[in-house]
């Protein structure tokens, strides 16, 4: 089985969210829902030294991610019907004829990737734009990124990066996500809760 995955270059991302908008548009999602998330992390502050001078350790960085099509997906583990499965490209997909829309995949996924669309009657999630991939194209989010910060390919063809190792993402050992990140200098380590999600109302 080929395993596709995403690569995200955080040194390039400006947090414009074009990837998110393009995905939402292509998949005809409501404004309140999205398959791709862009988190704005910030923290630090100003410190005054004894001589009265000020220094800052403030920082901001962005993390763009969708379903990570994990090697060991939590959503698949808990799915009661087997509707959540990995296809021949390693893409975690929903068998819509089998899904009961119980929402367990949504609860279990630490990346907040799948969710139940009650109007459609099943879980929905990033499918790596598999129809476009079959046509030799890139996923919409990758193609839309004006900074070329995103890539999608078989994981052995992706540039070198750390395996989804940045806050606020979970420990990658948990589900072995197929997201590889080139971190920027401001990036904080997995598990670090000292940074703040600046766009909480947008992503939560």
């Amino acid at each position, binding site marked *: 089985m080929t395993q596709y995955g995403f690569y995200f270059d955080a040194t390039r991302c400006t947090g414009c969210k074009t990837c998110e908008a393009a995905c939402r548009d292509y998949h005809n999602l409501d404004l309140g829902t999205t398959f791709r998330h862009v988190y704005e992390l910030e923290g630090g502050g100003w410190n005054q030294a004894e001589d009265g001078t000020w220094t800052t350790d403030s920082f901001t960085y962005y993390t763009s991610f969708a379903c990570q099509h994990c090697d060991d997906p939590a959503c698949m583990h808990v799915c009661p*019907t087997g509707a959540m499965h990995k296809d021949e490209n390693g893409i975690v997909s929903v068998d819509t004829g089998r899904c009961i829309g119980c929402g367990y995949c949504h609860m279990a996924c630490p990346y907040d990737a799948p969710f139940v669309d009650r109007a459609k009657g099943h879980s929905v999630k990033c499918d790596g734009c598999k129809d476009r991939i079959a046509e030799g194209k890139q996923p919409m989010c990758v193609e839309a990124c004006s900074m070329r910060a995103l890539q999608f390919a078989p994981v052995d063809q992706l540039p070198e990066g750390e395996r989804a190792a940045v806050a606020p*993402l979970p420990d990658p050992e948990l589900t072995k996500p197929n997201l590889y990140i080139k971190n920027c200098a401001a990036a904080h380590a997995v598990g670090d*809760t000292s940074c703040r999600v600046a766009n909480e109302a947008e992503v939560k």
Partner: protein
Amino acid sequence: MGNGFSEAALAVFTTLAPMGACAFIVLCAACFKGAFEGVAAKTLDKAAFLPLVVVAVGFIGAFFHLASPLNAFFVFMGVGSSPLSNEVTVGVVFFVLAAVYCILAVAGKLSAGARKGLLVAVSVMAVVFSVFCGLAYTMYTIPTWDTPASVVQMLGYGLLGGGILGLLTLALADAEIARENAMAGAALSIAGLVIGVAGFAWQIMAAQSTANIWGTAADQVPAIWGLFGALAVCGIIGAAVAGTSRKKPVPAALAAAVVVVAVGIFFARIGFYGLYMSVAL
């Protein structure tokens, strides 16, 4: 994270189904004390459908939670791997067993030995079902739920509600039999109250220090101790009514106690779902 009321249908299921199931334990205890050997046996057998209906209403609640209930039969595909499949399967086994008991009993097809054997089997399955209702939430990516407290509290709620519902079932058939077996119902309810309250408190305490990027889990449900209080107060009222039935069981009072206890457990379940917190996002 968060809003427990968004899982109200699941809260209805986890309130009613274990409660109805564990009510059969009281019937089982009454059976071993000879309750089904007298003239009230036929009425008792008809009344036994009450807890079965309560379980069924719980399952209907769970059905409403699904976006595609017509695909529900696929749920058995995940037995062994999915905690939800395991829960549903155990629940269905319990329900079939209990339904077989009720139907055979009403049809007069049960010998004394077969009745005892079936009721013991149904009672054991009721406890197992309650445990699996808790196990369904032990997912390794949800630290607030992935704790034995999830299982302990579900077992407690089943016994608490089941003890009183079982007594009501007996009282609806024959007040004297209910009086003779009030001790069993009250003991079950008190044990359930202690176990349920301890399990819920355990989970809330653990949630105070469980945090992700959004804060601690307990902070997401500011009213969590209020919900805990609702469970404790409603449980105490229910157990007290069960206890007073040792002198004179009043069906209306027991019915009211069942409702009060169900409301208390429902609030606790809302709190439980509100404490949902993923390991990350």
